[in-house]
């Protein structure tokens, strides 16, 4: 890049659509990432969900950048300076490429600032650093460049005042569909967005990220070449690479894969009732252990009652009989940016259930169905959460809670034993006691 090009690029960065695009990315990026931080599958303290959240934010950021690029590409036509610029010795493609580069560079720098600020919050508290999250974030940048190039191409080719808003909506809505699971499976991997709801405990193969990187770069290259080159056959090169990468992604059917290291259990070792969290969530152990132990204390003295709490995220890889009888902890929401846990009861601050448990039983489905109210009552008593219950179950629960504490525990002990052996006559008696 020579001095003149640098000067022109600097001018475009300061006076073109780039500063507006960059400001939009900064503002929208911080708002979106702030909202995702502690929400379901939030990125507080976790790298892979951070990477997936950055990719999901491209739904809005990419649409804004594509619209800005379309607006920038139509500037010469709007200002009626095309002929004037065309009369100079400067090649006609240069203003187009410099305009696209300025919007892409400005918005990429703004996104880097957003990612950097979020990473600075995750780094001090994260308990697991693996999972190839870096590559997921890296792919976001060619993804942004590809959307920007497509916007610039349409802005250059279509002389309409509506091209920028239509580009914005046309980029945004299909990505809503991709995240929502609409359309063929391969579209998930040809769009730059990723759903963070898939991220906790999972990872994406580095080869998939590499193929996406090549795909988005080639799409950007093809869009730019369509305008800049007079020799049309040259377009075959980036277009061929794009088709090859897309074909590989389509044929290899990529999936989120279980990250075994992330879901290994890390347990408390201080003798009290054991609380085990996955390595991914273990930064919450100090805050969650008292909460889980408080729930386990409720069961004290009941034979066969759970005496261990386990992070439910571990279930995606392994879940043995011991875990089945444990209290389950759902920690995908509620983590704070400082690495603590914001919840104090059975529900997270966002209203999601944190503590869950279901009686272990050998009963067949039909029998469980018949005594469903008892199972619901036992769960509601065990997790002490205000949950909506069927009217029958609510009546039973009210009757159980009206008993003295000792009788409640006695009833629960007999229920656990009957559920485990599926003793239908005892289950019927227990129901009778609550009528």
């Amino acid at each position, binding site marked *: 890049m020579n001095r003149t090009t640098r000067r022109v690029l600097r001018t475009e960065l300061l006076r073109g659509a780039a500063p507006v695009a960059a400001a*939009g990315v900064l503002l*929208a990026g911080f*708002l*979106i990432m*702030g*909202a*995702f931080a502690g*929400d*379901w599958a939030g990125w507080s303290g976790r790298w892979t969900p951070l990477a997936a959240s950055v990719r*999901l*934010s491209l*739904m*809005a950021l990419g*649409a*804004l950048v594509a*619209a800005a690029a379309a607006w920038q590409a*139509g*500037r010469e*036509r*709007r*200002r*009626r300076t095309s002929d004037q610029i065309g009369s100079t010795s400067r090649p006609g493609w240069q203003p187009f490429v410099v305009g696209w580069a300025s919007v892409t560079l400005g918005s990429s720098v703004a996104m880097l600032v957003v990612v950097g600020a979020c990473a600075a919050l995750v780094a001090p508290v994260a308990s697991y650093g693996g999972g190839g999250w870096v590559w997921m974030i890296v792919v976001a940048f060619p993804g942004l460049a590809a959307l920007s190039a497509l916007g610039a191409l349409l802005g250059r080719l279509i*002389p*309409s*005042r*509506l091209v920028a*808003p*239509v580009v*914005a*909506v046309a980029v*945004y*809505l299909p990505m*809503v569909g991709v995240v*929502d*699971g*609409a359309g063929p499976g391969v579209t998930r991997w040809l769009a730059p967005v990723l759903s963070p709801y898939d991220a906790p405990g999972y990872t994406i193969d580095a080869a998939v990220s590499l193929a996406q990187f090549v795909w988005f770069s080639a799409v950007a290259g093809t869009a730019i070449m369509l305008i800049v080159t007079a020799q049309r056959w040259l377009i075959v090169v980036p277009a061929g690479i794009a088709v090859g990468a897309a074909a590989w992604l389509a044929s290899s059917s990529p999936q989120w894969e279980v990250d075994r290291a992330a879901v290994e259990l890390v347990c408390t070792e201080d003798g009290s009732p054991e609380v085990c969290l996955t390595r991914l969530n273990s930064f919450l152990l100090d805050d969650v252990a008292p909460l889980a132990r408080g729930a386990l204390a409720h069961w004290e003295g009941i034979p066969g009652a759970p005496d261990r709490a386990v992070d439910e995220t571990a279930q995606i890889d392994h879940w043995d009989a011991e875990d089945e009888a444990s209290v389950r902890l759902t920690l995908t929401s509620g983590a704070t940016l400082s690495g603590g846990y914001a919840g104090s009861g059975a529900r997270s601050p*966002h*209203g999601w259930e944190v503590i869950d448990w279901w009686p272990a039983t050998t009963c067949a489905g039909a029998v469980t169905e018949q005594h469903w109210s008892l199972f619901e009552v036992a769960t509601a008593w065990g997790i002490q959460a205000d949950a909506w219950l069927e009217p029958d179950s609510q009546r039973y629960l009210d009757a159980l809670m009206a008993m003295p504490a000792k009788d409640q525990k006695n009833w629960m002990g007999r229920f656990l034993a009957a559920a485990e052996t599926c003793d239908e006559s005892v289950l019927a008696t227990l129901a009778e006691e609550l009528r």
Partner: protein
Amino acid sequence: MTSVVTPLDPRRDQRARSFAHRVAPAWLHARARGIPLAVLGIVAVALAAWWCADWLVHREWSTGADSRVPVVAGAPLLAVVLASAGLGGQDEELERSTAVRWRVRRLGHILGMTLLIGCALVLIGLWEPREYGAFELARNTLGFVGLVAASAPVLGSRLAWVPSFAYAAVVYLAAPKPILTEAAWWTWPLQQWGADLAVLVVVALFVGGTALYVMKGARPARDADE
């Protein structure tokens, strides 16, 4: 005996001239503002929204009426974005120098745009009007019209769509899930009809935006038009 009216009949000629006097300028004005194209676009958006809403609700893993949230937020936004280009003229400063009651005409623009988009979208949402259907589509139409009307005096008609789009794009992603009625003051495009706060915010946006646009008009564009 029946009278024969010839082309030279002075009464007919007067009527025709009166019609032409009233309608032709209005048609020219509408065409200059790109309204015929916008109307076609709005009809296309309504049909596409109808198809999408039907597909979203009837697909295999549908969660019911909730599945229509993207349509309820997206269709009014897209329709208003298409119509927003007509809020300003080719040469706003030149237009303002003419002896026309621009405030009345601006009010007509806003009301006409709201009615047209509202009617087109309400028609497609009548099956379950109170569960992400006609009521929410009408409410969001008012809200987005208010937003573009408020933006036009600041950014001009060509960029009046930007705040509405950016707002909807961010809110759709950032709104707490499940959608809480306590957050209705800023998540109004995603709320169910029962959220009174969402309706209040939308009415305030519509009244405020309309008043601002009627008083000030769209900011004159710096660039030539396409």
